[in-house]
């Protein structure tokens, strides 16, 4: 089988609700989507999702005519090709998207779901709920985590960082909502790099007087291994980071310097091949990884095969407008079906409708860093979030 061509489709989605964190607590509801189709001479098409649209052209020559089953060797070829300029930015996004689509093809050629191609024993991944919820009212917050708890999910990750008193109240709301799934729900927080390391230590230690936290995510900047290690040493919770680093080479200093306890992984980290490298290096160091949220939870296919995966983030804000998928959440686990590859099909008609009539709505992902980050806290202004009345 040979790769013969590719096609990129880009579109805009309006999610079912707003999503927001410390950097933009008011949230956004618009999300750009992109789909890469890799075509073959035997009619099979590999697909992937992400933001790699623009730069695929620069790498496609390296895989044109190649057998998609040789995906890891093709990854090495693309990575070597990017030697001088670096596997960074748009090039990294394109490499990631191509690698994902190649893995989708490899599994489809074998007629099996990707988790099986990757050697997993079962297509089943423990889930935790993540509300991306700074923009939700207290009532909406409870409703989200209660809905997740009704699916058996017993862990939650709250967006925090701007208002300690409100964060503590909302942690309690999240815990209460999840308590129907477990008498001791797993609680996590995420401040999305809004704090300095020392701000993080002060803030988290005050939270830990009231709650046991499993992990604190991005309590300092993504590359700051001194800062992240300092937080890890001074709080009881684990430190999680890595979602904004995109290669094994970028993650290595965090591992080597004992700066993180959990590494967030996803396909934007140089594809399935690249994120698996990160997971394997973490595994060698006795560290766990956690898969990021994904449209239709497609990344659970990969998480199922990682030896050191703890649980995967489930967000569920409504991003599946033109997707059909073969998985479900049951008893707190993402259960993958037998559909080949990622198990995702594209509803081409819906896609064309979205492209022909782009929806409109508030804001657009991704959003910038908030004022004061790393120096001083700017709490939500009255009316900026529903839980801070105007």
């Amino acid at each position: 089988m040979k790769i013969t061509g590719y096609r990129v489709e880009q579109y805009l989605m309006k999610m079912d609700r707003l999503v927001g964190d410390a950097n933009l607590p008011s949230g956004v509801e618009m999300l750009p989507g992109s789909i890469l189709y890799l075509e073959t001479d035997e009619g099979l098409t590999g697909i992937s999702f992400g933001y790699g649209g623009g730069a695929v052209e620069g790498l496609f020559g390296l895989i044109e005519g190649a057998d998609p089953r040789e995906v890891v060797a093709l990854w090495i070829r693309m990575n070597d090709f990017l030697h001088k300029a670096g596997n960074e930015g748009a090039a990294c996004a394109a490499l990631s998207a191509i690698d994902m689509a190649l893995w989708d093809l490899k599994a489809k050629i074998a007629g099996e779901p990707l988790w099986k191609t990757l050697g997993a024993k079962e297509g089943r991944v423990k889930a935790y709920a993540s509300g991306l919820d700074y923009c939700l009212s207290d009532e909406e917050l409870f409703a989200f985590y209660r809905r997740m708890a009704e699916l058996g999910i017993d862990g939650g990750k709250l967006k925090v960082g701007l208002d300690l008193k409100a964060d503590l109240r909302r942690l309690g709301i999240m815990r209460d909502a999840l308590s129907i799934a477990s008498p001791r729900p797993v609680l996590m927080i995420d401040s999305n790099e809004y704090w300095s390391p020392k701000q993080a230590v002060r803030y988290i230690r005050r939270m830990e007087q009231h709650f046991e936290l499993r992990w604190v995510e991005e309590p300092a900047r993504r590359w700051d291994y001194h800062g992240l290690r300092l937080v890890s040493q001074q709080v009881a919770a684990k430190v999680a980071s890595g979602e904004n680093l995109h290669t094994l080479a970028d993650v290595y200093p965090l591992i080597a310097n004992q700066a993180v306890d959990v590494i967030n992984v996803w396909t934007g980290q140089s594809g399935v091949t690249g994120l698996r490298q990160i997971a394997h290096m973490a595994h060698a160091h006795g560290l766990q990884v956690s898969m990021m949220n994904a449209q239709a939870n497609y990344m659970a296919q990969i998480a199922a095969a990682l030896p050191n995966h703890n649980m995967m983030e489930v967000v569920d804000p409504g991003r599946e407008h033109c997707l059909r998928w073969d998985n479900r959440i049951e008893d707190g686990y993402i259960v993958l079906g037998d559909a080949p590859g990622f198990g995702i099909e594209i509803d081409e008609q819906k896609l064309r409708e979205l492209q022909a009539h782009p929806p409109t709505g508030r804001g657009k992902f991704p959003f910038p860093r908030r004022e004061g980050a790393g120096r001083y806290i700017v709490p939500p202004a009255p009316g900026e979030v529903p839980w801070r009345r105007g």
Partner: protein
Amino acid sequence: MKITGVKVTRRMHETNALAGRLAESCCIVMLSTDAGLTGIGIADAGVRAPVRRLVADMLVGADPRSVTGIWQRMMDAQSASHPGKVLSRAIAVLDQALWDLKAKANHEPLWKSLGGAPPTANAYASSIGLSLGDEELSAWFLRMARDHGLRGGKLRVGTEESGDARRLERMRAALAEATPEPVLMIDADHGWSVKQAIDRVRAMEQQFDLTWIEGVSRDRDARGLKQLSDAICGAVCVGKGFATIGEFLPHLQRRSADVIQIDINTIGITGALQVADAAFGLELPVTLSAAPGNVHAHLAGVMPYFMSIEIVDPEPVTRLFTSGVRIVDGWAVAGDAPGNGLVLS
């Protein structure tokens, strides 16, 4: 597809296709499935009992395509007690037989199932495990250089100093048939302390450009091996015989290994892939120690920082099995037959 059982041949003495301490006796492990496919692996004969037990306890009924998950389960089941060498080899050979089945189920060679390109793996000749006198040593490396184009050689050292130098020169001179600058490696077979090794290697390095030294001191002495690495020009190579990813950790933390050696006879293919990714994080070159039938050549194309594979026998001289791997012009080339290419005679 489901595993239905295993057949293990009796102890066989004929083959000499096994590496180093794998000893002269081996057995062939054959995993059978309800699809009629058979997965093959070759191991030290000591694994016969644990292989049967592992298959009965954990493999029967499992889908071999889930090989990485099965490997993890076999490893986790041993984690309460550190698995002994025999048990490690049993898990490793089953992992190889499972990968053989996974590739056969896909009607493709193992290298392709792993995601690799057709491998042409940089290979070197290793006289480790062979008891060769001076003349035999020269003749053996000469054959490796002339018939197979091998440009590198590994020699066991550690006896008396002048003998080591004399034999190193014989190896170098023989390999010079293939290249003006042969790649020289030595294995001290754990016969030296760190300070002794520094002393001896420094003396050798006045005469020879050594690519790496392995088998110094204790494998777990990361501090000592770092001390050695800091004191000599050549690389310190660590990992032969390691059976768990955890054994590599102190060497990754202390950077006491300059080259990571992976032994698929003890850590399996699944473990080898994990270690190779971890090594890539530090950009440490990965070399694969010898394997029966040179099936380790299949892994070369899928390791991002692959360096070389060890060849003890370019062709299995035994009549027990054939291998699809050929050594041509210094490169190991894996074939296109489904699976790992091992075929029983």
